[in-house]
């Protein structure tokens, strides 16, 4: 394996996704090729229905591609079964969703602890507490999701995403369900923590301003990769 491919934490080759419908096969994605370096932040933008969420689920191993290859930290995702992909996610991947996706019956602290516990880490509680402090929720650790505001719930989700220091973080429209003030707070938290932990960030959004904060921006149009351009994040790195 070359040094270059080691640096490329995600590598996508000829990726395509087709689903069967009543009216015949429907191609959602085709001929996608790109790679992401370790520590890089990449925004995936496009209009609704362009296929960006599907791309994210294929990159994270939540779904399987119809054709092509995906390598995640050197492991060929397309050759792994559901179980192996689950193990890979537990070890290397964190998530932030548009709809927060917190377990309703668990407290904020327990929600954050969950991935670390699943990965069998010993100091899950301490890690979770530290992360909740970082997102400004130290005083609400014992609250259930239903007792938290949308912004607070998303902050818990971000804390959960960073526990166990995953190598890659996938975020699907993280601020789309929030007002602009809370949205900005979440976005800055996401980028700050990303920098602190040196995590690779794949951010799906249709918000151009948010996308610009990333190192690179991948444009998806009608299931195809239209263009890749640098974001403002590159300047920040250089600077």
């Amino acid at each position, binding site marked *: 394996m070359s040094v270059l491919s080691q640096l490329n934490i995600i590598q996508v080759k000829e990726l395509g996704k087709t689903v069967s419908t009543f009216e015949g096969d429907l191609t959602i994605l085709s001929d996608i090729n790109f790679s992401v370096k370790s520590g890089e932040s990449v925004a995936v933008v496009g209009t609704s229905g362009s296929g960006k969420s599907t791309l994210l*689920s294929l990159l994270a191993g*939540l*779904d*399987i591609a119809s054709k092509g290859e995906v390598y995640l930290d050197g492991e060929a995702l397309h050759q792994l079964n*559901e*179980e192996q992909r*689950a*193990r*890979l*996610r*537990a*070890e290397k*991947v964190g*998530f932030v*969703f*548009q*709809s927060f*996706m*917190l*377990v*309703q*019956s*668990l407290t904020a602290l*327990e929600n954050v602890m*969950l*991935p670390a*516990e*699943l*990965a*069998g880490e010993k100091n*899950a*509680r301490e890690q979770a507490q530290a992360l909740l402090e970082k997102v400004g929720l130290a005083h609400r650790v014992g609250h259930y*999701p*239903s007792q938290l505001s*949308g912004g607070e719930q998303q902050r818990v989700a971000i804390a959960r995403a960073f526990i166990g220091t995953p190598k890659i973080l996938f975020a699907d429209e993280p601020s789309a*369900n929030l007002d602009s003030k809370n949205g900005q707070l979440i976005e800055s938290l996401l980028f700050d923590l990303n920098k602190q932990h040196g995590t690779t960030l794949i951010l799906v959004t249709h918000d151009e301003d948010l996308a610009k904060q990333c190192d690179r921006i991948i444009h998806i149009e009608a299931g195809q990769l239209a263009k890749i351009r640098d974001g403002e994040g590159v300047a920040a790195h250089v600077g």
Partner: protein
Amino acid sequence: MWAKLALRLFFRELRRGELTIIFAAIALAVLTVFSLSSVTERIRLNIEQKSADFIAADRRLASNHELDERYLKVAQDFGLETAQNIFFDSMLFVDDELVLGSIKAVSNSHPLRGKITLRDTLEGEQYDIAAAPAKGEAWLSEGLFYTLGLKVGDKVEIGAGMFTVSKVLVQEPDSAFFSLAGNKRVLLNIADIPTTQAVQPGSDVFYRLLFAGDEQILKDYYAWLKPQLRENQNWQGIKDRQSPLGENLERSERFLLLAGLFGIMLAAVAMAVSAKRYCERQYDPVAMMKTLGGSRDTIKRIFLMHLSLVTLSSLFIGLAIGYGLQEVAVDYLTRFVANELPPAGPRPWLLSIAIGVVCALMFSLKPLLDLFDIPPLRVLRRSLGDKLAVSRIHMAVSVGTIFMLMWLFSGDIKTTLLLFAGTATLMAVLFGLSRLFFSAGRKLGLSPGNSWSLAIATLQKRANANAVQLISFALAIKLMLFLFVLKNDMISDWQMQVPEDAPNAFMINIGERDVDQFKQFFAEQNIHHEAFYPVFRGRVNALNGEAFARRVSKQEGEQEQDDARSGVGRELNLTWTDTLPDGNEILEGQWFEQTDELQVSVFEGTAERVGIELGDTLTFLVNTQTFEAKVTSIRSVDWGTLKPNFVMIFNSAMAERLPVTYFTAAKLEENHVRPISRMLLQYPTVSMIDIKNNIAQVQSMIAQVSLAIGFVLSIVLISGALVLISQVQASLAERMQEVVILRTLGARGRLIKLATLYEFLLLGALAGFVAALVSDITLLVIQQQLFDVEGRLHPYVWLLGPLSGASFVALIGYFMVAHTMRQNTQGLLRKVA
């Protein structure tokens, strides 16, 4: 406008399968109630009819004195069928042979219920017929043919009349268990009585009027008759206690009633669970409709229309399946019972429709009202309105509805209250205990790194939901265990009443000198027999010196006079013994010790009814002698056994005071009939009572009821299983989001499946254990309160409960989660997002 929208939505919902849950629950309730009530009703009617055969009527009036002709005439005016029986003993002569026969003269309409079994010749085929002998004919029991050396067609002299022997009498429907009839029975037409000249003033004659007809008319007639009845006139029905049949009949009816109630409870729980779940699933669509401008009124109409459509269609399907099910069951049952089961009438239809409608309305109403209150903001904040469903009002309405349904079904407030209050209290206690258990566990702070820890953590973290689930699991398992154990107990109790070696014949009137010869005869013929009891006839005259006739008449207005074995005011079989007979238990005082003082032990029922207390003095009249005896004990007597039982038992101090005859019971086989007939020929005073046919009748009834109970139990088991499945399904739907998040965050399928398996295993085992405990305690109370049998604990249930609970709940849970695991994570994510 809204109706069109409602219909469109309805069909869309149907296609999506959302409505199937609520539909299935109503249909389940309807089909359970319909099939249970119609099968039990048909079996009950059949049993009642068969039992009516046992007294050849629906009711009868018996007396030692001639009964007023007016009683018959008025009964006929009421529209009842009637018949008359007259019993007396008379000598039968054939050439030089003579024997004392037990004559029963019957009117042409006898028997009103059941059939008489006859043979045309001694060797001929036997057949059943509902008819009385023609004038001038006599039907004789087999024993008399051997004793007198007769054949069919011969002449026999009875009293002053000459009769043609026309049939061999094999069995009468109303042959009593312990009467002096037996194989010396002669059946005559009542019109021949004057010819015999056997019935004279002062003769020992026993009279019976038989009545049959509609239950309500019988009640009305009794209401007319009751004030005119005298002390020595007994009104008897098939359900009178203190007869093995009456008691068994009552027990089986109570069982079927209980089973029906449990069926309703289970269906109601299923309904409540699914109605709540359905409405919860509608939260988002309703929020969306409101957001898009749908008024509360429109939404109300749409969902009420959905509810009506679902109720109607599920009623229809439930009735159709229920009808099919009961047809299959009845078809199966009729293979085991000789006759066709009588039709059930309109009750099952009305009851099941009423219960279906009430179920649909009451259980859906509160969740539906909640649904209308869902704020449109839920479109943005999905958790808004989630708390609405768990409300005290919904609980109260549901609990009230269940109570009402049970009452509606049973029409018996005592049983309903007993069952309901017991279950409700225990559920409340259970809820508290399980909350304690789950929240106490939470403090242990297990870290969910493996399946067991995750299972326990999930159990702890969902204390409230689990407590509710635990209760419904426990309830379903409890009801099933309860019926299962009760069925086993009842059937084994019945089988114990008529064990294989039970005596089937009684020998009465054996002289003191002849006892040894009989013992020797039994030994030679290898006949198994019971002890020889001394017997004499007598009546109780006074209590503490006060004459009984007056005491009883004082209370006449308040008490039922239909107690055939009341023990007061008529002649009784009395005995003395120093050994407490089997099936008797001393309740108060002490069994006899050696003394010269005359003492008596009294059956509790008689003591209670007449007001006899320990230490009282009873005056007995035997022939012309009067005795005073002190009451030293009150006994319980198991009338359910086919053994001889006595209302009054004296101590052996009685032994020297009276000449007695002896009484024993023996088990006779087919090859003993001729030798015993010959033996009895040498002892003309000895009577034999053959109860073989009675035993066969009781056994066939037990077999039939056992079958019925087996069927009812299987229906309740199916309902119970459906409740468990719907509960697991509902809880899994709630867990779906967690499963998906766990999966996304990298939890492996094995971990999730095992965690669910262990979680349900623990929950099921706990529910099963609690169910076993509660079921056994309830059973103890119910057996004592409703079935009048001694309750006992069943250790095997305590093992069966947790085992069956754990395996059943865990299995269903595991398969359902395993099914979820096969779906792709992204697909699941879309479903819950």
